[in-house]
Structure formats: structure tokens, C-alpha cells
């Protein structure tokens, strides 16, 4: 019963049998991966060829499509190249292990393992490209010509841009109003005491209702209902597109105000009460504490979800097409009907991407900058 503690912790054993000294040379896996890699190259090439042939059907595709085909066709060769390197490194690992050079054998084996991961990652990418080519070429090229007719997209650009101007105005005006309105709602929801209980209840009811109803129904009800019901100032002070525009703004602000108020609330609640204690102990009033200490910190913290909601708002400006404001989707629909082809709608989608993607990148940049500024290196 007098076994030493150190004996129990590390039982004596044959060093050669320790798990850490084993060499996994991956040779079988590497050979299998190379077979798969060659297979994926052949599949990708055949699908790119089918796509190339579909370019001759109906509306001819742009020359750039040919260039892209060639680039993809060559790029896919990366997959078997990694597979080949995995095989040579596996062989090397096996040879070194046979020579008893275990440290170098393990390094070679690890390199072979990395190559196999590259085969997997790039191989999956190639498979997705092959599927895209197959999809676009399918039904005798109809998928491509009906959805991605580049000539039609290009010739629609002026009409689409014209409509998109409305979307940008809708978004910019609604965004500013949402920022203000949602903050008011969020702050009202935080007001303490019995005196504000009715207001708190209203704020909660508002958020529940407008988050619970589809945006398109709100736009429909306000856009068609308010003019019919002669609701001022929309009925007699505005006409035509101006009227539709402001009705659209109102509906979007009501819907997105409810979402953004919740985001604000989460942000306000995430600021630790000790910050409030510190501010109040310096003599700042409740309002000053909110204004200078809590809200600025909360807004920084909620930047990412706030921007998510604004990207969603940018996209949902297209819903205002249901009340016949000639924004981009409505224009695209008219072109669609004229040409019996969906490509103008694809064009509208491209317009949205042009603003939503930079927007997302911009906020990533803001977050990074803020982190760098307020945190220790």
C-alpha cells in the first residue's frame, strides 16, 4: 500500500508504444482523395462545357462568360494538385517512419493531412461551381436566358436606376426616423414608477403588434387605407408619388421602429448598473446619465444588430411596390411583363447588392476601429 504517487500518475510503459509517437501517414486516404479530385475535375469540365453550349441558345451570353469558364476550368486543377502533393508527402512520411526518423515523419504526415483538407475544401467549392453551371445550362439554357439574360439586364439599367432612386430615398428617410422613433420607444419602456405604467404598456403593445404583423400588410393597410380614409396630412396635402412615398415611409418606420426599439432596449439593459451608479454619484440627473453615459455605450454595443436591421430595411423598401410607388421592383415587374423574362428582376437584385454589401463591410470596419480605440493593445 506504499505505492508512490508519481508511479500512479505515470505508469511505466514501453516508450515506443506511447500514443504521441505514432505516425499517421494518411497514404490510403491520400490515394482516395486524388481519385475523387480527378473525378471532380472531369465533372466540372463537362458541366462547364454544357454551360458553354447553352450560351449559343436564344440570347447569346456575354464574352465575359467564356473568360469565367476558362478561369474556373483551370482553377479546378488545384484540387488534384493538392491531392498529388498529399500522396508524395504521405509516401515521405512512411519512408521516414521506416527509417526510424519519427520527428520528421510526423511533420511530413501533418503536412499531408493539411493537403487533404485543401482537397476537401477546394473540391467542395469545385462541386458547387459545377452544380451552378449545370443549373444555368439546364432546360436547354432556359434557366440562364430567363433569369440571367445579361443583355436585358443591361438594357434595363436606366429604368431600374430611376426606380432605385426611390428606394434610396425611402431607406434614408425611414432610417433616420427609425433611429429617433425607436430610441423614444425604448426609453419610454425603461421609465420607472407607476406614473409611466400606461406609457410603458403602450410601448410594449406597440412593439408586440408591429413585430407580429407582416410588413407587407402594414404597407398595404397604410398605403391604400389612409388615402381612402382621408387621413391627413396624406390625403389633401400630397398627391401622386409624393403621397405614396410618405405613406411608405410611415409604414416602414412603424414596422422597423418596433424591431429597432427592441435592439435599443437590449443595448440599454446590457450596460452594467455600476455605470449608472457612477454617473448618478457625480450628480448627473437621470436624463443626463442616460444621455451621456448609458445611451452612447449602448449604441456602440448594438451597432451590429442595428445594422442588420438597416440592411433588412434597405431590402424591404422593395415591398412598397405593392402600393404602386414606381420604385425599382415595380419597374422591374413592368419590364418583366414586357419581355416575358425575369432578368430585369435579377438586375434589381444586383442593385440592392451594390448598396447592402458595402454597408455591411462599413460597419465591420466601424466595430473594428472602435475596438482598437477603447481596448488595450
Amino acid at each position, binding site marked *: 500500500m506504499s505505492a508512490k504517487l508519481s508511479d500512479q500518475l505515470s505508469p511505466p510503459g514501453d516508450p515506443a508504444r506511447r500514443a504521441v509517437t505514432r505516425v499517421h501517414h494518411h497514404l490510403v486516404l491520400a490515394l482516395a482523395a486524388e481519385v475523387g479530385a480527378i473525378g471532380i475535375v472531369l465533372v466540372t469540365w463537362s458541366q462547364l462545357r454544357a454551360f458553354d453550349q447553352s450560351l449559343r441558345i436564344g440570347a447569346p451570353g456575354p464574352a465575359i462568360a467564356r473568360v469565367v469558364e476558362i478561369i474556373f476550368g483551370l482553377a479546378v486543377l488545384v484540387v488534384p494538385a493538392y491531392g498529388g502533393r498529399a500522396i508524395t508527402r504521405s509516401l515521405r512520411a512512411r519512408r521516414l517512419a521506416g527509417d526510424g526518423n519519427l520527428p520528421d515523419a510526423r511533420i511530413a504526415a501533418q503536412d499531408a493531412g493539411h493537403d487533404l483538407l485543401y482537397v476537401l475544401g477546394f473540391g467542395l467549392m469545385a462541386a458547387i461551381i459545377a452544380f451552378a453551371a449545370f443549373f444555368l445550362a439546364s432546360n436547354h439554357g432556359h434557366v440562364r436566358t430567363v433569369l440571367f439574360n445579361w443583355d436585358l439586364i443591361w438594357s434595363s439599367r436606366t429604368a431600374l436606376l430611376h426606380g432605385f432612386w426611390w428606394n434610396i430615398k425611402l431607406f434614408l428617410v425611414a432610417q433616420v426616423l427609425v433611429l429617433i422613433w425607436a430610441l423614444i420607444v425604448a426609453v419610454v419602456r425603461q421609465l420607472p414608477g407607476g406614473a409611466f405604467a400606461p406609457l410603458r404598456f403602450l410601448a410594449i403593445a406597440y412593439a408586440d403588434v408591429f413585430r407580429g404583423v407582416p410588413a407587407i400588410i402594414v404597407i398595404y393597410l397604410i398605403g391604400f387605407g389612409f388615402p381612402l380614409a382621408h387621413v391627413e396630412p396624406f390625403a389633401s396635402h400630397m398627391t401622386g408619388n409624393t403621397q405614396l412615398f410618405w405613406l411608405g415611409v410611415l409604414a416602414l418606420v412603424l414596422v422597423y421602429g418596433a424591431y429597432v426599439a427592441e435592439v435599443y432596449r437590449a443595448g440599454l439593459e446590457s450596460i452594467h448598473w455600476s*455605470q449608472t451608479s457612477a*454617473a448618478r*454619484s*457625480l450628480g*448627473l440627473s437621470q436624463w443626463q446619465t442616460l444621455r451621456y453615459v448609458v445611451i452612447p*455605450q449602448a449604441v456602440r454595443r448594438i451597432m451590429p444588430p442595428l445594422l442588420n436591421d438597416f440592411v433588412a430595411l434597405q431590402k424591404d423598401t422593395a415591398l412598397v411596390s405593392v402600393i404602386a410607388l414606381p420604385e425599382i421592383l415595380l419597374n422591374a415587374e413592368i419590364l418583366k411583363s414586357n419581355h416575358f423574362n425575369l432578368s430585369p428582376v435579377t438586375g434589381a437584385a444586383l442593385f440592392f447588392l451594390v448598396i447592402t454589401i458595402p454597408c455591411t463591410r462599413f460597419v465591420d470596419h466601424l466595430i473594428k476601429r472602435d475596438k482598437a480605440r*477603447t*481596448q488595450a493593445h
Partner: protein
Amino acid sequence: MSFLELVDVHKSFGDNEVLRGVTLRVEEHQVVCLIGPSGCGKSTLLRCVNALEAIEQGDIRLEDERVSGRGVDLNGLRQDVGIVFQSFNLFPHMTVLDNVTLAPTKVLKLGKAEAVDRAHALLDRIGMWDKRDDYPDRLSGGQQQRVAIVRALAMQPRLMLLDEITSALDPELVAEVLALVGELGREGMTMLIATHEMGFARDVASKVVFLHSGRIEEEGPPDQIFRDPHSERTRTFLRSIIEAKRL
């Protein structure tokens, strides 16, 4: 009439009665140290004095003016009574200078230039004027805590409350903070200090108060409390401190 008077102060959180009738006097220019085991009510007592917590029973008077209960101008009270917290609680989204000038400009309505002058003098004093444009996260704990002290001083309070201000600091940073507090005490700042630093309390306190389970068990000059405590509980507490080699 004492400068600060607490008479039979009671405070509970739910069923937990944290202060069970505390009566305490602090004279002007006195430094009073509150000592006692964790949970004895030191922090709560300080938070009650500047009304961050409302008391349920008793009276708190500052220069014979009742400052507890209803009808008190809390923002006014807090201009006269500064507090520094264990966790610094600097505003992380503001630079050092903005932290120090916020309350003077917004509460005292000082002009920007005057507030900056005031901050300049105070930050110079702790050798941190050069760091005025840094954000708190870039400072060491000791620097942050000294900025927090200066932030409270910028309001020119008549009374300072220090709530275990060195408990969150690495040991090597404690001295710089205590040195600043010691200086303030020698200059005549009236302070009520909750602390675990017994050596510091012995050196700077005019009076040491031992708090136990929400009551004042014993109070007296530091020499008497640390050398010859009358109460058995005080003795037990100090013995445990000495055994932990903290005194």
C-alpha cells in the same frame, strides 16, 4: 453638531437586514475607516450616505441638513458627496479628460475651458495629464482608480466616500492609490473609507470603526483599536487578519 451624522440607520435587501441601526459621527477633516469582515455592511453604509441606496429607518445628516428620506435633492447631495468604487467605474467610451470634465460641465455648468483647467490641475497632480486622451481600458488598474478619485474630486466635494478602492487592484498597484488617499487626508479632506488595508487604516485614520453584522461593534482611535481592542469580535477579526499576514 457633527459634519456627518448617522442616527440608527437601518437598511434591508429583502429579508436580509444589512444595516441594523448604525449610529456614527464624522467630524470635518476627519478620516474615518470602516473595517470588518466581508458582508458586514461597509459598502452598503457608504452607498446609503450618498443615497445610491434608500434607507428604511433612521436619519442621515450632513452639516445638520437631513439628506435621507423623501424630498431630498439627490443631485445636490451628490455634488457635495463624492464616492469612489471598488471597480473604478470609469466611463469606458470617454477619454480620461472627458471622464473628469463630464460632471463639472454638465452638473456645475462650468465652461469647457474652466473644467479643463480644473482637470489639468488634478491630472497633473497624479501625473496623468499626458494620458488625458487615452481611454480607460488602456490604463493600469492603479491609474484607472486614481483617475476615478480625481473625477470625484473635480466636483470639489465636501466629503469623499471610498468603497474598498484597492480591493480590485494587483498588489503592486495598491501603494500608488493609497498614497494619493493619504495625501488627501493630510490636506484635510473629510473621508469615510471602507477598507481591508489595515496598515493603511492604522496610518491615516483619525478614527477606526469596526462593523459587524450591520452594527458598530467598536470604534476608537486606530492605536486603541489595533493594539487594544475591547470587543472580543474585534479581536477575533484582527487576529484572522494577522494570521493571513495582512497586518
